[in-house]
């Protein structure tokens, strides 16, 4: 019910959604996020062992915070064309808030802690301060919950 994959191959949205939706009858809400290549082809470099490890840690964090019934994180590497999926995060829960928040949390942390690096025609993509801020807000609210 909890699945991680770091892969070169494309992923199949219908298959991943069906896996989460199929956890019926307890599932009431499924969120599937996909990130895809904008504007120009990319090459994704990555650190394989650390990628699996970091994603597993983030998934454990998400499960500790929200009552997820299932979740999927897929991150691709290698050459990717415009429009191709780079990352998929899927969550299933009884209610929508956990599914939405769990998926948002996972994406925010993948952006700042999964060891992948994008290179486009004009060179290596720079990290964005807004991504650090997006991840940090989950820490800021931890004391409040």
């Amino acid at each position, binding site marked *: 019910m909890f699945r991680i994959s770091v892969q070169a191959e494309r992923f199949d949205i219908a298959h991943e959604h069906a896996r989460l939706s199929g956890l019926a009858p307890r599932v009431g809400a499924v969120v599937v996020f996909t990130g895809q290549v904008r504007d120009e082809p990319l090459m994704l470099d990555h650190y394989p062992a650390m990628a699996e490890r970091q994603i597993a840690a983030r998934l454990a964090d998400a499960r500790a915070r929200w009552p997820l019934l299932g979740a999927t994180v897929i991150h691709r590497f290698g050459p990717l064309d415009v429009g191709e999926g780079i990352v998929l995060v899927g969550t299933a829960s009884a209610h929508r808030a956990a599914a939405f928040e769990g998926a948002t949390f996972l*994406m925010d942390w993948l952006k700042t802690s999964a060891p992948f690096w994008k*290179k486009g025609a004009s060179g*290596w993509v720079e990290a964005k301060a807004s991504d650090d801020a997006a991840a940090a807000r989950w820490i800021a609210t931890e004391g409040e919950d």
Partner: protein
Amino acid sequence: MAVALLYFAWVREQVGTDREEIPLEAPLPLRALVEALRARSPGHGRALADLSRLRAAVNQEFAGWDAPVRPGDEVAIFPPVTGG
């Protein structure tokens, strides 16, 4: 004993290799290790000149520059990540 060094993204390109091993007999702070690596080649020097542009992991966990590196560790040096 030795330490395995892994480089990614433009650090790998500038250093000119994705992996190398260096001998290490006693624990050393990550910062001192990186400073020592700069002397290995002009590419190492360029890639590792500015720690503020770099991040590191020891045994696949993010580590600060004061973290100790021990013989047998796997150390990775790379720019801030841009996945997702």
